[in-house]
């Protein structure tokens, strides 16, 4: 039979294929000499237009290409703003309504075909006005307009007129003026102390009109910024490669930091010119296993330890010996975020029965949740305000955040539903990722112990947010990460005027809380404001529109050849500070 022949041919194909794999694997070895930072993002990059930078992944990439007016000091904690494209921090009028910002001279947009002769031109104050109008333009449907919504004189009116086709980009806006190329004057409708923070967000980064006009809707794939890196190539759903921008205005590595930074070697490069690497690669790797294995092989430089690889790599906040031997380093950071379960306060039962919410809160076993889903990576959250942000107080008391099933049952009785009798089945909404679903099951079990039945509705993220916006959800699990280091960013989620379709999806309204919120808005960071935040937290605990669960911690692993790495969730443009020690890399890579 000629089957034998077929089989032997097949065997040859197999051997040839495996051989191909081996030889090709070898040819790539010399890449160790390249001065490149290899990063991973855990979702597919959507695009690189700042007004659509509504997720952590696009922000990570965009921050290297675009630059807003301000940035955070890389090393200091708590976070501190410093000028980036601005030449100094702004000056404000006495009433806090007029802010004058000077822009650094000689900042150039990256070279691009959109400019005459392909040479990037100087950045001017007008570019900011154009970019912010673009953010406000309803035709662009940006998620980021909230940073200026109702805050800048005349901008909302312009937005409305644009929607009706009665305005144009040529129109002047009272609150946004550029008396000369280097001066930007912002007039506010009311005091807004978060203004400088939002001016450090990518939503507010300047884009050149020429490029937007040239590329139109494709501008999302042709980023033209002022940043330290520019786009070299993007293979959709695979990786983004950024290279050093030769016309960057420059920057220096910070020469002071937090206590202990010096001892950690974070100040070795003090005063040196940034950036240190020639190239930054962001690989889009969604699944945990390939991301982790690529990191262990040294193909990625920095990785957040996936939840299911945690037990084998870390115990008691120490790396396992195996990993230490490979030269790996661990960085633990308390993230400015909160995970919570929210109730729809408009719900006729859940929203109106405080004792019922107290019972549910008391029946929630946060410690097991922390262990099971976060490997203990986090702290029990007692209020919406996370660590590292003004208003957080680790001695704060929330009497309903102890796991006490007996007490819970008493409250349930007071609520009028002894042992859950008479309660209908509630719907708990969540997203359909495996972990979200399992957490919902966990809640289901916690409540079952009280006799409360819930049905889990797991849908895609957009369908989930739709439900919240339309006030159709009863209770749900969700998380919030800080946009900027201010408690206001968390408390606005409970402000009465922000109810759905605004960010207050719980539709919580409390007059006293709202008054305090408005009062705090008018105050700069001060002990007085901290006291108000505390009062707001107490009202929150009295009403329990949410059950706060956890403030997470990030456990980041990086290789021994990476220098100057320091984590903060809000700082995105860290690539320019990082140095890749190539000698060290050559040595350590052999052990992997």
């Amino acid at each position, binding site marked *: 039979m000629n089957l034998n022949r077929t089989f032997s041919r097949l065997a040859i194909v197999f051997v040839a294929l495996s051989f191909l794999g081996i030889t090709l694997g070898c040819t790539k070895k010399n890449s160790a000499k390249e001065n490149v930072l290899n990063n991973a993002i855990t979702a597919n990059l959507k695009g690189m237009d700042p007004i659509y930078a509504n997720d952590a992944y696009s922000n990570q990439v965009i921050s290297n290409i675009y630059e807003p007016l301000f940035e955070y000091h890389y090393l200091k904690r708590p976070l501190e703003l410093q000028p980036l494209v601005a030449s100094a921090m702004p000056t404000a009028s006495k009433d806090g309504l007029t802010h004058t910002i000077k822009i650094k001279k000689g900042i150039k947009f990256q070279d691009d075909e959109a400019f005459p002769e392909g040479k990037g031109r100087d950045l001017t104050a007008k570019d900011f006005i154009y970019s912010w109008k673009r953010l406000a333009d309803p035709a662009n449907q940006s998620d980021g307009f909230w940073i200026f919504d109702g805050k800048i004189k005349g901008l909302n009116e312009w937005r409305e007129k644009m929607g009706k086709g009665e305005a144009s980009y040529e129109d002047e806006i009272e609150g946004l003026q550029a008396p000369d190329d280097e001066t930007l004057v912002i007039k506010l409708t009311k005091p807004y102390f978060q203004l400088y923070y939002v001016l450090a967000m990518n939503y507010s980064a300047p884009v050149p009109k020429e490029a937007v006009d040239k590329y139109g809707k494709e501008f999302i794939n042709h980023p033209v910024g002022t940043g330290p890196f520019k786009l070299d190539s993007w293979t959709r759903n695979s990786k983004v490669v950024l290279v050093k921008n030769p016309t960057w205005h420059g920057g220096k590595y910070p020469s002071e930091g937090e206590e202990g930074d010096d001892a950690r070697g974070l100040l070795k490069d003090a005063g040196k010119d940034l950036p240190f690497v020639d190239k930054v690669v962001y690989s889009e790797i969604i699944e945990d*296993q390939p991301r982790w294995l690529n990191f262990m092989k040294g193909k990625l430089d920095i990785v957040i330890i996936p939840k*299911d*690889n945690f037990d084998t790599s870390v115990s008691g906040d120490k790396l396992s010996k195996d990993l230490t031997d490979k030269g790996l380093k661990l960085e633990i950071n308390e993230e400015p975020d909160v995970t919570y379960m929210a109730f729809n306060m408009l719900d006729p039962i859940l929203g109106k029965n405080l004792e019922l919410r107290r019972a549910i809160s008391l029946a929630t076993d946060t410690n*097991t949740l922390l262990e*099971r889903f976060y490997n203990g990576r986090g702290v029990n959250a007692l209020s919406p305000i996370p660590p590292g942000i003004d208003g957080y107080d680790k001695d704060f008391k929330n009497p309903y955040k102890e796991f006490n099933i007996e007490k819970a049952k008493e409250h349930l009785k007071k609520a009028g539903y002894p042992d859950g009798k008479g309660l209908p089945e509630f719907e708990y909404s969540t997203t359909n990722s495996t972990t979200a679903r*399992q957490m919902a099951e966990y809640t289901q*079990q916690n409540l079952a112990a009280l006799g409360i039945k819930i049905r889990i509705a797991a849908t895609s993220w957009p369908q989930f947010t739709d439900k919240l916006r339309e006030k159709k959800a009863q209770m749900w699990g969700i998380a919030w990460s800080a946009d900027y280091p201010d408690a206001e960013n968390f408390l606005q989620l409970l402000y009465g005027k922000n109810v759905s379709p605004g960010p207050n999806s719980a539709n919580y309204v409390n007059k006293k809380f709202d008054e305090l919120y408005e009062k705090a808005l008018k105050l700069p960071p001060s002990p007085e404001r901290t006291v108000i935040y505390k009062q707001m937290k107490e009202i929150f605990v009295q009403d329990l529109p949410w059950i706060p669960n956890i403030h997470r911690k990030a456990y980041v692993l990086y290789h021994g050849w990476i220098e100057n790495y320091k984590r903060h969730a809000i700082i995105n443009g860290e690539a320019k500070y990082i140095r890749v020690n190539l000698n060290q890399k050559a040595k350590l890579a052999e052990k992997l």
Partner: protein
Amino acid sequence: MTSAQNTQGRSLWADAIRKIKKNRIAVVSFWIIIAYIGLAALCAMDLVFTSYSLVDNTIPYQAPSSAHWFGTDLFGRDVLARAAHGTVTSLIVGFVGAGLSVLIGTLLGALAGYFGGLVDELITWFYSTLDNIPYILLLVAFSFVSGPGLKTLCLAIGLTSWVGHCRLVRSEFIKQRGQEYVQGAFSMGASHARRIFVHILPNTLHLILISFSLGFVSAIKSEVILSYLGLGVEPGTPSWGMMISDAKLELSRGVWWGLAAATVFMFFLVLAFTLFNDAVRDATDPKLRDK
């Protein structure tokens, strides 16, 4: 005439059953299927494996032991019990999903094959249209539009997978329509409905049975795929699809038993159905009858 054809039908079945009984593999397969149905019934009545939803947070992800043969899951629940209860979900999806699709397929196929003409043209157009949409995409689209849950799952599978049955029944009806016994029934004044359901249908039953059991297996597999895409049954309900999709994260921490339990349970059910199906096909195939 009627009685003659009935004896013919009976003898076909008697003959087939006699043959299947002689086939050891077929008999074993048959009993395995019965055992699964029994298990599902007992589980549904909560008589066996009652610990399936018993949470014990002190023993998450325990490896298999004498207390828990297939270990425990994330919440310390017994994996074996959960896999056993998964049988209920799978059998519901299989029977209701495949049943619905056989029902639709048979009805439309019978109408098309029996009446021919315009009815046939319309039905053929309709099923060719559906047949030209890749099944899995149609399934995903359907369950996506109508939201997840066991009901949708059955409905989606039922409404999207009937084309094969329909085509089969139609061609069988066309063949049978011209046969003597149908013509005879016609001359005796039997109504259309009577001819379709009493005369022709019983003669195609064995084909429908085979088609059903193929559909059953594919329905069970569809559940796994849809679970993976987050379009499966309601969370908390034990299901093999969910257990397999959870394995994506569990395997990297070395937890293989959830996947193993679901796979083993599914494997034997699919194996039994496939082998039994094969035997029924052989036993009722006129070409092989004299073999």
